[in-house]
């Protein structure tokens, strides 16, 4: 029996969400007395695969088939099902990122497995298999039980963290048996944003709302973010008005994030905004309105003008990091 963890790659590189899924899967494997097996689809070199030895993985099944670079969900689910059957997987873990969310439902149908997405922690019981998940966009937690012998889980961002545990990793290549007819997606163009910290990976996020008054005032947010090595985000009206790109919109209808530290600058803290950020470990709010709802969600706050406070933050951050 094993726990199978799908670690996805972008251009041959694993990301934090993948290592977090590996850490989580390895912890379940230990809890259940099973082997932790990772599976990788697409061309990933030996040095990259070897990184999984830092996160408690015992074996890696690697298919170097370059066709997986197209991120064809149907094909990937088929390949993962082959891997799951080969290693006799009882529990399959994926990151709750774009790709994991897309593949997990298909995979669960193939394996006749119960699926729980957006999982926030280790199983609270192995039999019956019970695990917690985010519901109502972070406004509540649901305790779920999976009744099927095989289970598929997707792990919510930054809910488990990276857990280092060194292992003697065995890397095996594996043949998915997929033919040309299994791939039906034709990739025409890819745009990668470079040089920016991805919101999904960021441990610190600096976000601005309508209280920032206009796009011209974002230089302060960008400066603070760059000093802290943080990602930048915004509320929905800010992206709707075109002050910032849509990819920065966080909240119920945008990106759901859970960094260790979240700065809400000139953001009122509407319920739909909080839904997307309430998983943050520490929230800092700056708002001139003492009754702004954001202060109910915040751990640290300043009632005041963000234009006056932001320069102080930047200076203090420079001193800390300098």
């Amino acid at each position, binding site marked *: 029996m094993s726990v199978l963890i799908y670690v996805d790659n*972008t251009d041959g590189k694993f990301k934090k969400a993948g290592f977090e899924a590996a850490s989580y899967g390895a912890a379940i494997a230990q809890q259940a007395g099973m082997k932790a097996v990772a599976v990788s689809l697409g061309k990933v070199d030996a040095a990259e695969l070897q990184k999984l030895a830092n996160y408690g993985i015992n074996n890696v099944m690697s298919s170097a088939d370059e066709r997986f670079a197209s*991120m064809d*969900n*149907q094909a990937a689910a088929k390949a993962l099902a082959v891997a799951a059957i080969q290693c006799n997987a009882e529990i399959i873990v994926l990151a*709750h990122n*774009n*790709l994991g*969310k*897309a*593949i*997990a*439902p*298909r995979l*669960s*149908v193939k394996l006749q*497995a*119960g*699926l729980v997405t957006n999982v926030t922690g280790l199983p609270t019981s192995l039999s019956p298999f*019970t695990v917690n998940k*985010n*519901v*109502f966009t972070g406004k*509540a*937690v*649901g*305790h*779920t*039980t*999976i*009744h099927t012998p095989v289970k598929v889980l997707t792990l919510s961002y930054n809910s488990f963290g990276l857990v280092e545990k060194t292992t003697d990793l065995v890397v095996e290549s594996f043949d998915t048996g997929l033919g040309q007819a299994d791939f*039906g*997606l*034709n990739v*025409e163009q*890819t*745009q990668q944003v470079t040089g920016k910290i*991805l919101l999904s990976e960021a441990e610190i996020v600096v976000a601005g709302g309508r209280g920032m008054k206009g796009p011209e005032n974002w230089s302060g947010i960008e400066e603070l973010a760059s000093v802290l090595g943080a990602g930048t985000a915004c509320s929905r009206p800010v992206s709707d008005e075109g002050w910032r790109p*849509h*990819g920065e919109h966080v909240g119920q*209808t945008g990106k759901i994030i859970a960094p*260790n*530290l979240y700065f809400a600058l000139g953001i009122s803290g509407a*319920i*739909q905004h909080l*839904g997307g950020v309430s998983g943050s470990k*520490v929230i800092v709010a700056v708002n001139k309105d003492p009754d702004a709802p954001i202060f*109910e969600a915040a*751990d*640290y*706050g*300043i*009632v005041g003008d963000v234009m*006056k*406070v932001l320069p*102080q*933050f930047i*200076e*203090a*951050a420079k001193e*800390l990091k300098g």
Partner: protein
Amino acid sequence: MKILVLIGNVPDTTTKIKFNADKTAFDAAGVQWIINPWDELALTRAMELKEAPGSSIESITVANVGRQETEATLRKALAIGADKAIRVDADAQDAFYVANQLAQIAGGFDLIFAGVEASDYNGAAVGGMLAELLGIQSVSAVSGLLVEGNSIKITREIEGGSQTVGVVTPVVAIVQKGIAKEPRIPAMRGIMMARSKPLEVVNPVATETRVSFVSFDLPPAKANCKKFTEEQGKELINALREEAKVL
């Protein structure tokens, strides 16, 4: 080309979430129900495609798994402009149950829209499961979609960027923000017309429940917010380091 849009019936996004006394179920008393926000955007995009000059879209059908009280939400979708609605008369058990019901009615459609998740149980699963049950392609995190003959051109979000892909029908497009700018609001004329549009009710097929909710909890209340003055920006940053240990 025939389009199917899956319509989730969810609590309004401003709903204060509460549960029944033994915390085993969502307390729906006084709740306003709406079309799941992503499904509403999907329907809006479907309408735009149908209205485009030279469009090949013959019809837009909307479908939902739910009891009779969800019909108001389907009628709203008809008022926005869908031609026909189908309701599978059952309580949604889990994502697989819902997908399996929809698979009974989804054959014959060329393009199926699903939302990236439902804003209640955040399952993010029905669209992908339905595609697998139908044995067809699915593309997820879709933020743009064009129809070109029997091929669909899709813009999707990938980790750290975006990508344009082509895929032939039939396909399930699992959509998110960006697929349409603003959701359409039904006009008076649409509301009148919706009353006479067909709303078909079908019986569910027996399906095992694979996952169930045992109970729910609200997140623990936050400790009070520690306040600093407008001049104490530096002190706050230091507290993040010394006290919260996040810097």
